[in-house]
Structure formats: C-alpha cells, structure tokens
C-alpha cells in the first residue's frame, strides 16, 4: 500500500478531506484527533492490517508519521 493510500485511510478515520494530512503533521493540531478517531483507527488497523492497537499506543502517537509506522 502506498503512503498516499495509508494517509487516505487515516483521513477517512478523522473525517478529513483527501490530501489534508502530511506525515510531519502534529496530531494534536487537529481537533478531529479525538476519541471517535481513536476507535476508527483501532477498527481500521484491525480490518486493513490485522493489527490490534491499544488505546495507550494511540495516545503516545504524536505525529501522522507515528500512525503510518503502525501500518507497516
């Protein structure tokens, strides 16, 4: 999966328009980075990558790149 596609999945979880996110973006700068997004990311990781991501791991994520790293 390309980086663009991965960013697209994260944008979908955050209800953002396509092309909004860049890897270096700070998650805290987005008001969409909230509990609903956390659940959406956990579900997406499970569906797309068969990975179980804990709430704690997501809380520690600072940038979009940190989420991309979980998608490896």
């Amino acid at each position, binding site marked *: 999966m390309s980086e663009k596609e991965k960013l697209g999945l994260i944008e979908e979880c955050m209800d953002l328009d396509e092309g909004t996110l860049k890897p270096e973006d700070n998650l805290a700068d987005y008001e969409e980075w909230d*509990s609903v997004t956390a659940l959406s990311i956990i*579900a997406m990781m499970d569906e797309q990558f068969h990975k179980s991501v804990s709430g704690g791991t997501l809380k520690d994520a600072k940038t979009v790149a940190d989420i991309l790293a979980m998608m490896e």
Partner: protein
Amino acid sequence: MDAVFRNKRISGILAVLPETESYFDDEIGNYDFPEKQTKRLKKVMGFNKHRLAKDSSTASDFCVEGLNYLLNNGKVRREEIGAVIVVGLSPDYFLPQMSNIIHGKCDLPQDVLCIDMPQGCCGFLLGLMESFMLLDYMKDKKVVLFNSDILSHKVSKHDRNDFPLVGDVTTVTIVENDPEGEEIIFRLMADGANRDCLKIPAGGFAMPSSAETAEMVAADDGNKRCLDNLHMNGAEVFNFVQREVPPMLEDLFKSYGVEQEKIDYYLFHQPNKFMLQKLADKLNVPYEKLFMNVVENYGNPSGASIPTVITHNLKQEMTEKTYYCCLSAFGSGLTWGAIVMQLGKMDFCKEIETKL
C-alpha cells in the same frame, strides 16, 4: 467456563422503562468540545436519545414496578416463584440487599430464595446461568431474574465519553423448567488484569465517597468527572471486544457443532452502533440478524441490554414462534461470553413505561 444446560426456557420478558427521554442534541452544550466533533460522535456511535431514571428513583423501584405488573396481570403467581435473582451495579444500599427489598415490597412467600449478583454488561448471561443452575432444584417453581441498573446516576453529565451512552432500563425475565427444552450452550470468559477499564473508583470500602471524591476534575480526555463517577476507557474496551469476542464465538460454534447459518438472530449487548457493526463484519453476520438499535432509542442498558433488544425488536415474534439465537455480551470485569439457545413461544414479551 463452559456449560451445557438442558430442559430450561425463558417464558417471558418485561422491560420497564423510565418515562424520561433525553436527546443527544440537547446535551451537546454540557460538553467542552466543539459542536462539530460532538455531532460526529453522534453519527458514528448512533446516539440519538436515551432513557433516564428520575433522581428520586432507585433500581429496586423499577424491579418492584415490573414484578407487580406481572403479578397484577396474571403473568406470574407468587406461589410459583422459587427464586428472585437481582443482577446489577446500582444497589439501593449495601444492606439490605435488592432481592430482599423486592421480596418484602412484593410480599413474596418465605420459601423464596433471594440472591443479588453485582455484574455489569454480562449481567443477563450470568443471571441466566444462575437461573438455569437453580432450576435443577426448583421442580415446577420459576426463577424471576431482574437486570436492573440506573447508571445514569453515576455518570457525569459533563462527560461526553460516558454520558451519551448510558440508558436506564430494568428487565424482568421469567425462567423455568421445560421437559421439551433443547440444549443451551453457555460460555463465559474473564480478564481481571484489565478490570480497571470500566470503573467507579469511589463509593465502596476501598475509597468511601467524600467531599473530595465528589469534586469535579477536568480529565486529560477533555471531560469533567469525579471519583464517584463511572468511567470507561472506550478505546481499550473496543480493542478488547474486537480482539476477544469474534474468536470466542467462532470457537464456541466449532466446539459444539453450532451451524452458524442456522442462527436466526444475534442478540448482543448494546454498547454502541459502531462496535456492533464492526462485530457483525468480523463475524460475517448480516446486519438484519444483529440488532443495533437499542443505543439510539434507550442508551446502553448495561446488563439489561439483551432482554431489551428482544422486547424492542421481537415482541410479537417471540410470543408466536421459536428462534435459534446467539446471545453475547462483553464489558466490565472484563467479562465476555455467549449463550446459544432457542428462544420463543413466550407467554409475554413487552415493554411498559413508568413514571419512575
């Protein structure tokens, strides 16, 4: 724990609803979040309105109202009752117990067994298990199982994480012996290491309620709550449900030769629409077989969720026909489990509304 029960049936379910309905849109102002965010929460989780008990009502009030309704309408007779089981996390007091309060207020005979079971989301499964086991010693007497909570009284109104989803419903279920009853498969699992994912920190003997525990504090998730309040770590609970529930069910079906395509309905605990959709997807269950509409109408009624799914969606059907059902619940404890059984031909299956 696994168990197989035989010759038992559920002969009736009554849901007792508080009359007060509160709408999510009217509560948005209580939360310190941008409105757009909160509306997204509503859409994803499927929130709309929820039922709330009045401040002056207790859980036993709902139980007594429900049992009196059944007694007065000839749905059950006092001399038929062998045991009263009350499952929930909202006892009126530490002492006396809920079952004894109901026993006294409904004027039940002295040989009726009274049991309280503190359980949350899996309360209906646990209550049924206890009922099935007791019925082996009850001959023609019946068990009256109450699933009753008024957790809205324990959740901060300024907590967007926890308040929108609470719903106060009490259910009264009659469980009895049935010589023709088919096999009932039961499984329950526990993970006490993660017990703090759902917690009311203060109010017990470990941390008695005080002025300090009632002090509202801004939590790091942007919500205001105090130590007397119930709090759920939503992300961890969701992760746990996704991880544990589908494999548990798949293994249960395999172990007991349950043919999944023969299951008519999946009657699940009702935390929110999002979680139920994800579960249905993982289990390859069509949405029309797995109801997800309790949260939008009542909120999440804790241990009363499964009987409320039944009375809300199948009130007519359950009195006429029989259906092969998979009941499943997951939550506080952490606890998760399932029951596969035939449900139907009930004497009654309905909801009533009260002034409580």
